[in-house]
């Protein structure tokens, strides 16, 4: 019999390889400490940044200038930690569908995504995402003093907290504020409105002023994140409560009817035609084009309307907190992009994802991504998640908005709402959609009381059944 030389070569090869692998594993050293020269700001954190070197995570993000900046500074994270981060950039609705598909099938394809807080209770009810407190409290993974979670806007954290546990890390967000044409206010001698009634009077005066000018615009398009991003603030400002003492839905209350009637009245009287199909981009464009005199929407629209390249009204704009409603409250909307950790990941992937969340939500990275400019025409981020940055004169100077802007935004996100601005329940997407239909139906002519009653009845009968 011939000597089986091929077999011998193969066996020898395998042996050599395994020896090599074992040897190489034995050679693996402790990771190098982070060089403070190379990573100022991160080296001072008592965190072993390189603990998960070689991991890779995949993140779903929506296309938006603030996430472009987040992605643009992320290679820094990879150099710091050795963790590869890849992004899939998908528009919001498709992103949400993809995230839910991934979470519900437990595939763990996406370590995290730029999530909408209104879905967090739904995810938690299905055990799809991890509570973040365990990582926040773990001294191995987090330097609590350096990260200083208390500096992250408390209402955003509160809104992302379910049963006392934080589930989504706020990385970017906004408040709704009144944005008005200061020049027109001055010409007409109008005062900044303190109450919703005064807002209505101002809208009327501005609307009459010029035929091409509309007095006020608010989101009219239907959806839990469109008209139901504005109407809840009115509802609460009128003194409405989502649930009564017995825990029953209470939107079809006198306060609810009054809030809806107010919304319908100001929009049908003073808003541009077609506002019923308008979401924030349409409103912002119209304001930037000078055809709308004031609107209540996200503070982030300032980046566009204060930019002379994109706006005809740059420099003529004033900002104010929401006017007070008959219920005695100013109520701003809560919005933040909340990044969760997918529960279907392996332990080391979860840890790697946490390192990323800690990094991206840290003061250091927030400041870097806020001031990162792709090219000359680029705009700064206005949605930083930290109070200390909002108060930082360096940041305020960089943005270059009028001084009052910062007081208005800070005042709004500190005082003008509560964590239950929208109820934190898993049924919210369904419930919000139902109310969104009622609000839009009222706007196109249905009696406000009837529309709201009908929606509330359907919600009680079909959605909140126990």
């Amino acid at each position, binding site marked *: 019999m011939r000597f089986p030389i091929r077999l011998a070569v193969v066996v020898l090869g395998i042996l050599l390889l395994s020896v090599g692998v074992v040897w190489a594993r034995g050679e693996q050293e402790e990771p190098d400490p982070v060089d403070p020269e190379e990573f100022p700001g991160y080296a001072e954190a008592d965190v072993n940044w390189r603990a998960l070197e070689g991991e890779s995570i995949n993140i779903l993000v929506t296309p938006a200038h603030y996430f472009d900046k987040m992605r643009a500074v992320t290679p820094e994270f990879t150099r710091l930690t050795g963790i590869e981060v890849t992004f899939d950039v998908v528009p919001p609705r498709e992103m949400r569908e993809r995230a839910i598909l991934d979470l*519900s099938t437990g595939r763990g394809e996406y370590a995290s995504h730029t999530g909408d807080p209104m879905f967090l209770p739904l995810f938690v009810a299905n055990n799809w995402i991890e509570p973040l407190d365990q990582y926040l409290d773990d001294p191995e993974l987090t330097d609590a003093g350096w990260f200083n979670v208390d500096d992250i806007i408390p209402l955003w954290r509160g809104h992302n907290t379910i049963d006392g546990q934080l589930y989504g890390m706020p990385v970017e967000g906004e408040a709704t504020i009144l944005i008005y044409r200061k020049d027109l206010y001055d010409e007409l001698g109008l005062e900044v409105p303190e109450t919703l009634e005064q807002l209505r009077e101002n809208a009327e005066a501005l609307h009459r002023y010029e035929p091409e000018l509309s007095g006020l615009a608010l989101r009219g398009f239907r959806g839990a994140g469109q008209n139901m991003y504005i109407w809840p603030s009115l509802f609460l400002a009128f003194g409405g409560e989502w649930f009564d003492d017995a825990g029953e839905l209470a939107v079809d209350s006198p306060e609810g009817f009054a809030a809806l009637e107010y919304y319908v009245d100001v929009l049908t009287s003073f808003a541009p035609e077609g506002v*019923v*199909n308008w979401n924030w981009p349409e409103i912002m464009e119209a304001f930037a084009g000078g055809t709308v005199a004031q609107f209540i929407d996200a503070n982030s629209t300032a980046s566009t309307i204060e930019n002379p390249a994109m706006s005809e009204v740059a420099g003529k704009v004033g900002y104010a907190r929401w006017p007070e409603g008959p219920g005695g409250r100013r109520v701003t909307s809560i919005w933040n992009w909340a990044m969760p950790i997918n529960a279907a990941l392996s332990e080391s992937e979860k840890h790697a994802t946490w390192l990323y969340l800690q990094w991206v939500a840290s003061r250091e990275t927030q400041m870097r991504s806020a001031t990162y400019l792709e090219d000359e025409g680029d705009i700064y981020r206005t949605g930083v998640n930290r109070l200390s940055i909002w108060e930082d004169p360096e940041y305020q100077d960089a943005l270059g908005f009028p001084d009052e802007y910062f007081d208005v935004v800070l005042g709004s996100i500190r005082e003008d709402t509560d964590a239950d601005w929208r109820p934190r329940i898993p049924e919210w997407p369904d419930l919000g959609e139902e109310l969104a239909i*009622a609000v839009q139906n009222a706007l196109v002519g249905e009696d406000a009381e009837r529309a709201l009653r009908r929606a509330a009845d359907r919600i009680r009968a079909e*959605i909140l059944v126990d």
Partner: protein
Amino acid sequence: MNPKRRQKNDGGASSSSIGNEESPKRRLSLAKGQQRFGFLMVTPSLVFLLVVFTFPLLALIGMSGFQMQLARPDADSWIGLANYVRMLSDARFWHSIRLTVIYTISTVVLQVAIGMLLAVALSANLAGKLRNLLRIVVLLPMITAPVVVGLVWRTLLLTQRYGLLDFVFIRLGFGTQPWLSDPSLALVSVIVIHTWQWTPFAFLVFLASLASVPEELYEAAMIDRASALQRFRYITVPILRPAIVIVIIIRVMVALRAFAAIFSATGGGPGTATEILNLFAYRTAFTAFNLGYGATLGTTLLVITTVTSFVFFRLRSADQQ
């Protein structure tokens, strides 16, 4: 091709070339082998169909028997026909059915009527070159994706004050019109959008049918002093009849399943003014995350589409006999 027929033909061919030496048994096994080979050849496509079509369909029907709501995972359970019972008492469902019927009937009637008028008007009077050009032009709406059509109409044509249609209306002194914000007008708008996109299909089918009408028929009618209307009524319509039936069948099936153009133009709104059954099912399953009820609505739409086309095909075959 029908395997049985092949088996017969091949049997005949072999017997004539080889003569009668071959035993019936061997011939049978040859046929069997061919049959097996035939099945082997179609297996990949059968498996593909099962995986991408039959399985999801069965899953959909199965899901409609479950209480399955992402918001309430603890309550997931088999509930039999309860979703259907709930559906029958759901006012929003009946509203969507009413809209589906209005939408389907009006779009199909408009497509057939306008398509036929255009075909009749243009078939006689067009020189060859112009006709070819026209064919290309009318194809354009059809080859555009419906979601794009919806967006183009929403932004370019129907935007208030700045849209093309309002431009004309304002110039003519009618003022701006709430094309997509008034509930009834929004329904009219989405019907017009669908008709605009798909009338060319009816037009092309009718144009092709008219080309086959012998000129002598019309000449004879003219000698008998038949008026233009009479010629249309007694010659054109009977000849176009099979084409009309097939256009109606195809267009009804498509209109029942319409989605993308409405979704991008109005999103089913304002309120629920343009929410046909298909959109209602989508919203229930993917916005409200009530998968069980969404599957129920989807199954109902499937049944409606199947029954409707079945009835139409029966009518057609009865018509042909």
